[in-house]
């Protein structure tokens, strides 16, 4: 009752499995169940898409009504008594699943969806265990090249229509349709067309079975060996909430998936999905590289590298020191960096490092923004807090022109979003001394860079980003760093601070 009288939203109270539930008026039984953590099995219903009502799995019994009804299209009305657990309902669920499995190839051992497949989950939950099907199955096209990120198996498909609705309602491309009828029906693109947009992997996510698989992920890893932790995508200033999937024991990352949030709904873009790759061994800078005096650049320990940097800093005037900072670090990292260098050491030359070809105003209308940095707002606020000019600009060229004797550069974490990075690193090579803090292993190819410090990736540290509208994205639960020598800025600054304290 209290819920009903609070606020202006009109509510209804009904009973689901003998439990009284109050929800906003107009809510379906399925949506209400989801709000209250009651699980009604379903394939075609998805909270981010319109109702299709075709899988016929979410059947429930309403008191005093003759037929079972689908919960996804059943609006809750006051006093309605609904059950999803009565024996007749359970029996209907068993058979709904059996019909889904009749022509399914059951190739779970080689299917990437295995382990996170709704058919498998429901089989364990409501399966008949003993199949009634003893006839040859309907065969359909497999391993279809349907988009740059996708492979389609129409035999595994259960025709839930989620992908079709996604293309109609979310990307508005209408790229997919269901062709033919009856048990010959197949999902597909129109003749000579492929899916071409930046949101293809969402089809893999919403596909409840293994019909859509990701070209990037398929055949790489069984999902049950993966561990996932929440994080924020560093690919652009939208800052989609994501789950990062990794196999920590071998220090490998495998994929990003969107995590439902007010920022990104249920989706994320394909570009963002690639922002795990730089954290893997073959791509990342794994150890410090330092050139000291006449000694050529060599692999060192972190302690040695930091000592060398402190030595240089102690020898330099504060006017000779400059910071070059990309907008791909956390608010906390900026704060500790500026606290030490700007507030304590009095460094005043701080340059923003941005990609010169970026178009800050660009936006694809869905999620992907032209500002390819996750924390432009956070950097601005940290600059302001440190008493420095805070408007967004690209100070890279100015820094190169000034050519200060000692530069500390916080390189972009997601290098592929910085197409000019190779050229810019070449320019940095020409400066007297640059300490480049980066996770990008390609930086090691620039022999003129005298001091390289390996950094942690976004999934390996704690902190916050502020997205384009200053919404907070939290990195709260880090994986162990992919390399023992990797540090975040806060750790580096703390160690530098200690060294300064001992030296002074």
């Amino acid at each position: 009752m209290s819920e009903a009288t609070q606020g202006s939203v009109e509510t209804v109270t009904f009973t689901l499995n003998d439990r009284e539930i109050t929800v906003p008026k107009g809510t379906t039984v399925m949506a209400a169940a989801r709000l209250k953590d009651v699980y009604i099995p379903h394939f075609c219903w998805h909270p981010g898409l319109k109702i299709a009502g075709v899988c016929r799995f979410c059947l429930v019994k309403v008191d005093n009504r003759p037929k079972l009804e689908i919960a996804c299209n059943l609006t809750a009305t006051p006093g309605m008594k609904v059950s999803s657990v009565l024996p007749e309902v359970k029996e209907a669920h068993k058979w709904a699943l059996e019909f889904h499995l009749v022509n399914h190839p059951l190739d779970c051992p080689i299917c990437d969806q295995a382990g996170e497949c709704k058919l498998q989950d429901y089989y364990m939950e409501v399966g008949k265990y003993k199949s009634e099907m003893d006839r040859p199955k309907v065969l359909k096209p497999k391993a279809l090249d349907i988009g740059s990120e996708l492979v389609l198996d129409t035999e595994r498909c259960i025709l839930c229509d989620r992908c079709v609705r996604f293309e109609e309602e979310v990307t508005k491309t209408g790229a997919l349709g269901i062709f033919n009828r009856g048990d010959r029906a197949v999902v597909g693109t129109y003749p000579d067309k492929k899916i071409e947009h930046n949101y293809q992997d969402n089809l893999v996510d919403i596909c409840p079975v293994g019909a859509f698989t990701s070209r990037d992920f398929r055949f790489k890893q069984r999902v049950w060996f993966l561990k996932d932790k929440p994080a924020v995508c560093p690919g652009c200033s939208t800052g989609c909430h994501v789950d990062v999937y990794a196999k920590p024991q071998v220090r490998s990352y495998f994929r990003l998936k969107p995590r439902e949030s007010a920022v990104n709904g249920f989706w994320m873009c394909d570009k963002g999905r690639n922002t795990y790759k730089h954290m893997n061994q073959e791509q990342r800078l794994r150890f410090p590289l330092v050139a000291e005096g006449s000694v050529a650049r060599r692999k060192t320990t972190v302690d040695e590298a930091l000592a060398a940097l402190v030595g240089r800093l102690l020898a330099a005037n504060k006017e000779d020191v400059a910071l070059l900072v990309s907008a791909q670090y956390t608010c906390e990292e900026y704060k500790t960096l500026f606290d030490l260098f700007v507030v304590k050491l009095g460094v005043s030359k701080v340059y923003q490092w941005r990609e010169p070809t970026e178009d800050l105003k660009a936006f694809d209308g869905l999620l992907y923004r032209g500002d390819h940095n996750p924390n432009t707002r956070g950097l601005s606020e940290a600059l302001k807090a440190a008493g420095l000019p805070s408007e967004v600009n690209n100070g890279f060229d100015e820094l190169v022109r000034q050519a200060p004797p000692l530069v500390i550069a916080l390189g972009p974490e997601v290098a592929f979003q910085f197409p000019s990075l190779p050229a810019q690193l070449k320019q940095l090579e020409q400066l007297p001394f640059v300490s480049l803090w980066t996770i990008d292993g390609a930086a090691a190819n620039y022999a003129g860079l005298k001091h390289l410090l390996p950094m942690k990736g976004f999934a390996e540290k704690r902190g916050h980003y502020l997205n384009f509208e200053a919404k907070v994205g939290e990195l709260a639960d880090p994986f162990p760093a992919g390399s023992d020598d990797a540090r975040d800025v806060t750790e580096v600054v703390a160690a530098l601070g200690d060294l300064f304290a001992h030296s002074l």
Partner: protein
Amino acid sequence: MAQDKPRIILRTEGLANPRALKTYIEHAEGYTAIKKVLGGAVTREQLIEEVKASGLRGRGGAGFPTGLKWTFVPQSDTGPKYLICNNDESEPGTFKDRHICTVNPHQVIEGMVLAAFAIKANKGYIYTRWEFQEEIGYLVEAIKEAYAAGFLGKNILGSGFDFDLDHYSGAGAYICGEETGLISSLEGKKGQPKVKPPFPAVSGYLGRPTIVNNTETLANVPWIVNHGAKEFRQYGTEKSPGSKLFSISGALVRPGVYEVPLGYPFERLVQEECGGYLPGRSLQALIPGGASAPLLTPEEVKGLTLDYEAMASRGTMLGSGAIMIIDDRQVLAELLKVTIEFFAHESCGQCTPCREGTGWLNNIMDGVLGGTAKPDSVERMRTVAKHMGGKTICALSDACAMPVTSYVQKFSGQLQAYLAQAAAAGSHVK
């Protein structure tokens, strides 16, 4: 005492040029009902009340009360509304609507003007199945004549009421006879039924309130307006008033389309209208209401009358009035296979139990007839059919399951014989 065999629908049948507007006007009170209604003698509310009082039930198969259906259109909605004549007539065994188009299309058009007036629709469509090319020609010609005579178009008979009527045809699919499948097709989409609610009366064609009525249903309306609900109720039974067209096929001397009052004895229809069975033939089974209706045994046919209640009491349905005589020379197992194959072919494929179930049953029947089915296949068909029923967006799944269930229940002997033969030959899948 009313006539024994009323002529409510087929009023111009047997006349020269039966389809012509002139014939309809001279011999069948043509377009007098719209003069009465649009002239102001009958209000919109009175028209609906009269149709409700007549007890007219939808003649397409479901038998839903027509007047009641009209009231579901929300009259508070002032935007466009649509009236659609469902002339898809796709149930196997049914051929009565095409007969109406052949002998009396104007009565359908007049019925549509009246129905449109009742629901305040200014636009209508006749949706005919693709295969009826000749009948489409008759309808298009009749529409043209009605426009020329001022019975269609703007300001009909000076009443201020506008009603435009177009003809449309899909590519020929069973499921486009289901009203929301028809609407999808009319919208230019793949013909597949829409999830309900919302129902078409609230959100139908192009998301607007839409009433879909069967051809025969609409053809009843002018007569009801002219003669009144009371006279209409003199024909038929209490719960099934009026006349009905039956398309009766099989081993009869004169199969065809006959208009008789509802409640008419089946045996009388066979003997009087159809001239009895062909010499030497007898009834093996009866499909009383199209391919989707459960079969009746000769025993169950005894004393059968042709009305909704008598059919329901025998566990089957009147459907669209498609009576199929299955005589003793037919192989029922083959008939069942053809029936299932039809539904498996026509399933639109969106609902899982139908898509997979119709195909599965077809698959099993292939095995039964081909000698490769397992010995327990009959039982399997029964269970599969049982779980296909009542679980889908439209009734196609049921339409396939019902005949299977009735066949397995009443005539499983023939199927078992196939299976026994296969088992003896060792050809079945082990």
